[in-house]
């Protein structure tokens, strides 16, 4: 079970994600990320992962797709609120360093 809600600030969207990101739910995350980046052309998309308890390889794949879309469009994808479980999986994938990661929401939305 995963839930996503969006908060729209000035030229920034914050996506609050909760639950598990796995094979069943990662398509929804991918869709939400690509909607903000490609369709809405939001220059900065912030992903709040504080309430995400689990992420698997399909979730990582969705994040990578979002990152690639942001790079193609010259926008930014920022992650924050990574707990141990999420951080471990990103470390295991050797992809932790390629993402822009903030410690807090204030940092992520700072000008």
């Amino acid at each position: 079970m995963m839930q996503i809600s969006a908060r729209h600030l000035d030229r920034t969207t914050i996506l609050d994600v909760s639950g598990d990101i796995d094979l069943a739910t990662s398509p929804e995350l991918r869709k939400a990320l690509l909607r903000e980046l490609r369709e809405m052309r939001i220059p900065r998309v912030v992903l709040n992962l504080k309430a995400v308890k689990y992420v698997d390889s399909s979730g990582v794949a969705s994040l990578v797709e979002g990152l690639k879309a942001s790079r193609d469009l010259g926008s930014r994808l920022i992650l924050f609120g990574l707990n141990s479980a999420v951080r471990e999986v990103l470390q295991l994938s050797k992809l932790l360093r390629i993402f822009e990661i903030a410690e807090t929401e204030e940092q992520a939305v700072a000008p």
Partner: protein
Amino acid sequence: MAVGQESKECPLVSHGSLLLKVELRSNPETLCIVRNALGQLAQTLGFSETECRSVVLAVDEALTNIIRHAYQGKPEQPIELCCSRIQAARDGVLKPALEIVLEDRGAAVDAKKLCGRALDDVRSGGLGLHFMRESMDAVEFRRRWHRNQLRMVKLMHGAEPPEGS
């Protein structure tokens, strides 16, 4: 016949005792139920919090691969999951371990795809097998009697189960 093997010297040396046997269907919605059950089992056996997460990740990735590749996304197909406590050899010493065996009746695993992928390029996909190998002490694939069999072993590093378990 083994079609692919990745093991850090962890052969099965006893049949062990069965801890859990589950018959599942290839529906992605069941993954969270299996994760919860495996997490509880690993915790009861005395694995650390990080080791519990590793076991859960490996099994989840294995099931994801079965659903996506062996059954090509077709739902309601059978998957069998067996967990046993075994004795496994590591550096010539027998150690208690958790053995997890998954069986499906889907398409044969392509041995060429079992090499995983290089992690130096930034792309999505192909991470599942890498996660399984990094998370477990042994990962072995076999094709027997028209079934794919995946066996994974996680050594228990001296942890004792909590009292009363």
